[in-house]
């Protein structure tokens, strides 16, 4: 989230699209209710299903799964055509006025530079026109046809209300009503917030869905303001934290990237990360990357990381492909190219697509280790559970170790909420049986491996032997020690660069913030964005002062938010060019003539003069990007693409299937179905009574929602002769499931290009372990393909067929 849960109360309009906050995030959704009741805010829900968020919406519109970009580009078109634009914001805080390379363009649903063989674009031309000094050419009058604004206008021209209605199946009157409501928030004193979740990410163009909304919010001037922003409602309690710390194939902590093998040494790696400002006077905060990188390497390898050995740069693995994401790993696994696999609090047998392929992969491992508080389906993948897990145990040669871990009630540490608050928690229960902390388990494994390398030698032992491990009890590092390691320390006394007599931080002391970090090895910090979370003043994440002086929901003394305890990102943009709030009634920070001050930590240098330093301090432009340059693989603007399995042809180019640059492995391509065999669109979703595959282990939740079902419309039920509560078989090109049919008015056929499209809703909470009845999940059916930029699997739009089935136990 750019903002926080408690900030939603400041909004005038909430749009929930790509999520279902009332059911998946009920206590956060309370702040929507608060805004409705106390501010008169209104709520828009756009979703294939009339869910519980929709049931309290002012306007609900159905949409065909996988067509969100058409809707969003249509909304941008509406705003431009009807002058619903926050012009001062757009002209000054976005790249609307920048000129783009003349070779950039698009035709037939593709941008220039497409290579069908490689399934990739040559993105060279997706750039600005530069002056001789390397700065960007601009046209403040917005008349040059090559300025971003005019290109955007041209790009969205195709997304007429007719187009949107035909592609999305959204009735035109409701679509236009929503556009009108959205457009009204272009006023300086009106703000909209966007709440989304996996309904937007789990598509082969998920990142572009989110960009579409981000662009719309920028055009309306709604980013950086209280009650505004683009807000990802994250799924797990610490999915934000693990992303921050970089537990992803190609990540380093604090949103830095692992090097590729083309970056042969530290200097080469840094050479493309200079981040020289593209517009004079801009902050371009990533210029500090060397400080964060060296501090991270010092946290990893302590005194063994020296300038002479590039701070241990070579000890990090180097990528030969963009990343070894879960799809790639399970594809490799299915071909016998992976031997060992660890699942720590993760249940891939139910959460990764094409379950048959997942089972095949796990069956080819030599050793699978699960570290989990629960007995997961993954740990038991080799066990036969009839139709619910039809395997032949004797043929599966994988050795499995199931290690019992503690859960939240038994451990201590911080988890990071959607609003980036790091909240510390304490243990209050003795672990059951022989369950142990993950930290103890990992330390024991690591120390044994290290000992084997010490005794026996072996291949590349240095990164293991040199790993910093100076914990009081090496077998059980304490949460406080680990948190402080992430916050960082001064390894030598740090002096003020402008006044060498002044000591900033004494040697050995915890760092007060990331501003004092150095690239000369005199500081260490595991995760630079967490600097300030545990300082010499104590554990800032444990703070519990819930006062809110500005009554604007920032709660600055409640726990700690990264970065720098800032609660609303880009908050400089909540003020006009002169530094006054766009809406005086919604004041967050302002320029007082000398400095920025207010109820949040300013997201800009406190003495940075208005009118020179622009609010988007992380970009070399200082502005936000309506045109994404070459930073996304599938285009600098979002373009409508169909899901890989779709009953509708791509209207721009009937030959295109799915995202033209998304990676798909040959065997998975063969396993895609067509609407001839699989006429119905399926989508996965969550229920309010369940959390993923965890709560089926909880008796109360198992009673509340005991049994797997699929949800269909009355029309589809009639068409297929399916009765309410009857058993059905649902199948795709990859697998089949049996379920109880829930026949409702919540899902209605959508009319796309004049033809009805039926939607089958498939909730995801059942398996064969736990207290609930055995059942299936959508992943038995879903395709093995992901988003073109990050490879999040396409769970939200795929094709199935459905028919009535005999009751369980009866012969088929």
């Amino acid at each position, binding site marked *: 989230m750019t903002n926080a*849960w408690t900030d939603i109360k400041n909004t005038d309009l909430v749009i929930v699209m790509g999520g279902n906050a009332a059911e998946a995030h009920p*206590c*956060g959704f309370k702040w929507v209710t608060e805004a409705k009741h106390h501010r008169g805010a209104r709520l828009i829900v756009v979703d294939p299903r009339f869910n519980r968020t929709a049931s309290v919406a002012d306007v609900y519109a159905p949409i065909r799964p996988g067509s969100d970009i058409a809707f969003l580009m249509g909304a941008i078109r509406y705003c431009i055509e009807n002058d619903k634009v926050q012009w001062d914001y757009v002209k000054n805080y976005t790249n609307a006025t920048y000129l783009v390379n003349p070779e950039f363009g698009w035709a037939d649903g593709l941008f220039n530079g497409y290579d069908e063989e490689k399934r990739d674009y040559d993105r060279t031309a997706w750039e600005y026109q530069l002056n001789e000094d390397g700065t960007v050419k601009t046209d403040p009058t917005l008349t040059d046809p090559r300025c971003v604004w005019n290109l955007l206008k041209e790009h969205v021209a195709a997304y007429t209300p007719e187009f949107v209605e035909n592609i999305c199946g959204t009735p035109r009157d409701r679509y236009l009503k929503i556009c009108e409501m959205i457009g009204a928030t272009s006023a300086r004193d009106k703000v909209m917030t966007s709440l989304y979740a996996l309904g937007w990410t*789990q598509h082969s163009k998920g990142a572009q869905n989110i960009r579409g909304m981000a662009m719309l919010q920028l055009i309306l001037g709604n980013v950086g303001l209280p009650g505004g922003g683009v807000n990802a*409602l994250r799924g*797990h*309690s*610490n999915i934000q934290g*693990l992303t921050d710390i*970089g*537990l992803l194939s190609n990540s380093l*902590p604090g949103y830095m990237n692992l090097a590729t093998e083309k970056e*042969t040494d530290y200097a080469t790696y840094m050479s493309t990360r200079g981040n020289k400002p593209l517009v004079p006077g801009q902050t371009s905060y990533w210029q500090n990357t060397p400080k964060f990188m060296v501090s991270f390497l010092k946290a990893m390898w302590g005194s063994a990381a020296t300038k002479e050995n590039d701070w241990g740069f070579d000890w990090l693995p*180097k990528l030969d492909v963009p*990343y*070894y994401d879960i799809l790639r790993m399970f594809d490799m696994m299915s071909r016998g*190219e992976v*031997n060992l696999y*660890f699942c720590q609090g*993760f249940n891939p047998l139910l959460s*990764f697509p094409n379950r048959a392929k997942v089972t095949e992969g796990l069956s080819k491992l030599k050793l699978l280790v699960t570290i989990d508080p*629960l*007995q997961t389906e993954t740990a038991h993948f080799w*066990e036969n559970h009839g139709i619910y897990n039809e395997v032949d145990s004797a*043929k*599966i*040669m*994988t050795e499995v*170790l199931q290690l019992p871990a503690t859960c*939240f*009630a*038994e451990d201590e*540490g911080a*988890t*990071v909420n*959607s609003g980036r608050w790091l*909240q510390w928690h304490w243990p*209050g229960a003795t672990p059951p049986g*022989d369950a142990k902390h993950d*930290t103890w388990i990992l330390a024991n*494994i*690591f120390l*044994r491996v290290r000992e*084997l390398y010490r005794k026996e030698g072996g*291949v590349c032992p240095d*990164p*293991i032997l040199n*790993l910093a491990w100076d914990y009081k009890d090496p077998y059980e*590092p304490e949460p406080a020690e680990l948190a402080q390691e*992430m916050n960082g320390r001064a390894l030598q006394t740090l002096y003020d660069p402008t006044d060498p007599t002044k000591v900033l931080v004494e040697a050995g002391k915890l760092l007060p913030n990331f501003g004092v970090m150095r690239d000369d090895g005199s500081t260490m910090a595991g995760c630079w964005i967490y600097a300030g979370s545990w300082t010499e003043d104590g554990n800032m994440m*444990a703070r519990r002062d819930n006062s809110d002086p500005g009554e604007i929901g920032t709660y600055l003394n*409640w726990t700690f938010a990264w970065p720098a305890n800032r609660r609303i990102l880009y908050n400089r943009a909540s003020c006009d060019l002169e530094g006054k709030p766009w809406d005086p009634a919604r004041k967050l920070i302002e320029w007082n003539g000398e400095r920025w001050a207010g109820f949040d930590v300013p997201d800009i240098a406190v003495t940075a003069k208005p009118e020179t330093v622009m609010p988007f301090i992380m970009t070399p432009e200082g502005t936000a990007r309506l045109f994404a340059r070459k930073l996304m693989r599938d285009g600098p603007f979002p373009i409508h693409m169909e899901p890989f399995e779709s009953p509708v042809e791509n209207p721009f180019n009937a030959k295109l299937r799915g995202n033209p640059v998304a990676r798909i492995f040959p065997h998975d391509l063969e396993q895609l179905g067509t609407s001839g065999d699989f006429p119905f669109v399926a989508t996965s979703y969550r229920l309010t*009574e369940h*959390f993923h595959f965890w*709560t089926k282990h*909880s008796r*109360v*939740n198992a009673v509340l929602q005991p049994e797997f079902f699929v949800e269909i419309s009355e029309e589809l039920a009639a068409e297929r002769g399916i009765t309410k509560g009857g058993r059905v078989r649902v199948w795709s090109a990859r697998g089949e499931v049996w379920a109880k049919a829930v026949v409702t008015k919540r899902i209605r056929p959508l009319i796309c290009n004049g033809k009805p499209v039926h939607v089958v809703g498939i909730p995801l909470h059942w398996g064969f372990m*736990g*207290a609930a009845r055995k059942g299936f999940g959508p992943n038995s059916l879903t395709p093995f393909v992901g988003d073109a930029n990050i490879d999040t699997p396409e769970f939200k739009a795929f094709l199935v067929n459905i028919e009535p089935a005999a009751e369980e136990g009866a012969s088929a």
Partner: protein
Amino acid sequence: MNIDLSRRSFLRLAGAGAAATTLGAMGFGAAEAATAAHVRAFKLTSTTETRNVCTYCSVACGILMYSRGDLAAGEKAELIHIEGDADHPTNRGTLCPKGAALKDFVKSETRATKPRHRAPGADTWQDISWEDAFDKIARAIKDDRDKNFIEKNAAGVTVNRWTTMGFLAASGGTNETGWLTYKTVRSLGVLGFDNQARV
């Protein structure tokens, strides 16, 4: 950690001993003290209160856990109740149908409670000691890493990667667990490394 007079400690003070002197000190008169003397003690007065955060979604509601026994004092603690933390700015005491049933998750019958091993081709688990499990894992890591680790690519560039091993990390775990996991997994040279954010 609970230095302020919380709602609970107020009730504990008011209900537990029912000593007139204590009540007097709190400003109660004799009549109130007499009433308090025969009121049944509040159920949670003998429990230890611990502040925690819901483990499910990222709203991260504040929760209060009540246990018999004080873990911080080195005692065995049995969780008997969980409720929303009224002081928490986000949830202000409320919990959803998932959070309200958190205790049943903690005490689920299908928690993993001892290390177990499944041999190749077997259809049952065998118990295994932590020591034996760790030795087996360490041996497997060492042998496979030594065999399949790639120090240099075809161009002779140092790449130090190990792709026959993968690790999925838990986005339900703490930052501190995440950081220790990061250090351990990366130092081995593992690239097949993700958490639920990928999905």
